[in-house]
């Protein structure tokens, strides 16, 4: 029997394991058995990947940067969802409020997600920095540190940040475009009461990451099955809907520049061993 490929994933909710069960069954049925290993945070997963405990890691964008940093930039991003590409984050504010430009946030409070959330904290704060506003000095930051270690996978931090804005405890809040779309449609956010103040540059989100020494034939075997998923096949659609994609795409690293810039400016990894 062929040795399964070990795939790591961070789990914040047991229901997410159901998606991975379905994916594992799909891989098994297509001649590429995988075993999933779940981690409570991305730091543990990155360590496991680099020590060779797992073959592939389903990484957040910050975990990708961390793996690159720790491996001397030798890891490879081999695949991602179509929905991981070209995401943006928003700073939103009250439509009838006094904040009309980013500059108006000087001396005000911005609510953000967990400290390690690329989409709800690092990149939005990077946007402020690009406009010459230093978080903590020019702008007060209200951080909603829910489930630190999950890199913002859990939407609770973004939701709490919005609730700070709604309660008048912040003048703006940060969130990813997908949550803005969902929450303005399901009634969580009244789109007539809130408006998008600023939009970040596009960035990429999660990716499957491997070490440099992952055998190419194993990688091709994994990708062949992954890319065989078709949204127009009803048997695959449930799995793809659960994972939030319409197509798997080749991995690319060009979309991590914005996060890299933010991480550098904010010295996110300062004090940690490379």
């Amino acid at each position: 029997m062929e040795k399964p490929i070990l795939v790591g994933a961070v789990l914040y909710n047991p229901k997410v394991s159901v998606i991975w069960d379905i994916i594992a069954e799909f891989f098994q049925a297509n001649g590429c058995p995988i075993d999933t290993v779940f981690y409570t945070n991305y730091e543990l997963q990155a360590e496991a990947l680099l020590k060779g405990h797992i073959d592939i890691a389903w990484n957040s964008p910050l975990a990708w940067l961390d793996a690159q940093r720790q491996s001397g930039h030798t890891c490879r991003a081999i695949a991602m969802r179509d929905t991981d590409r070209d995401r943006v984050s928003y700073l939103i504010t009250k439509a009838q409020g006094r904040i009309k430009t980013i500059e108006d946030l000087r001396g005000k409070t911005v609510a953000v997600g967990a400290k390690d959330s690329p989409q709800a904290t690092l990149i939005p704060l990077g946007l402020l920095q690009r406009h010459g506003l230093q978080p903590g000095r020019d702008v007060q930051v209200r951080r909603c540190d829910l489930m630190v270690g999950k890199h913002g996978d859990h939407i609770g931090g973004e939701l709490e940040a919005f609730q700070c804005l709604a309660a008048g405890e912040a003048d703006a809040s940060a969130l990813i475009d997908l949550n803005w779309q969902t929450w303005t449609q399901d009634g969580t956010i009244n789109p007539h009461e809130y408006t998008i103040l600023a939009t970040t540059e596009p960035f990429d989100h999660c990716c499957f990451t491997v070490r440099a020494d992952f055998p190419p034939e194993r990688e091709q075997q994994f990708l062949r099955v992954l890319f065989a998923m078709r949204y127009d096949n009803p048997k695959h659609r449930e799995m793809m809907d659960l994972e939030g994609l319409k197509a798997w795409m080749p991995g690319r690293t060009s979309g991590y520049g914005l996060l890299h810039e933010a991480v550098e400016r904010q010295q996110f990894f300062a004090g940690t061993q490379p």
Partner: protein
Amino acid sequence: MFARTHQYRVGAPVQFDAAYDAITALEYVLGAIGADVVNGFQTVARKRRVEVDHVEAVVEGELNNPLTYLGVVGESGHPGLERVVVKVYVASLATEAEIQRVWQEMLAKSPLVRTFQPAIRFELSLQVVL
């Protein structure tokens, strides 16, 4: 599972897929608690000749940390039951005092209440509805 002349099928210990097609062992435990309380109440009420129209229970269970069941690396705690909440609804025209006597006797005689109450957070409540 076989019990005397009966048999029933039990699924996985725990499942997180709402579409899972079997009743899990954990769900059977919670169901057994509900059945114990409801049937126990009716049995005592009959014995004490207290007329009861209807009894039902809502049982909710909370695991200490379900992620440990999935073997998530770095999680702590255990997959055991941390808390069980049992809400019992009784429809009866009997007096409050009569119903309370039945309730207390049922609790004292319930094998599952007496098992779980000293072991975990076991919250029982009774509501009389007309």
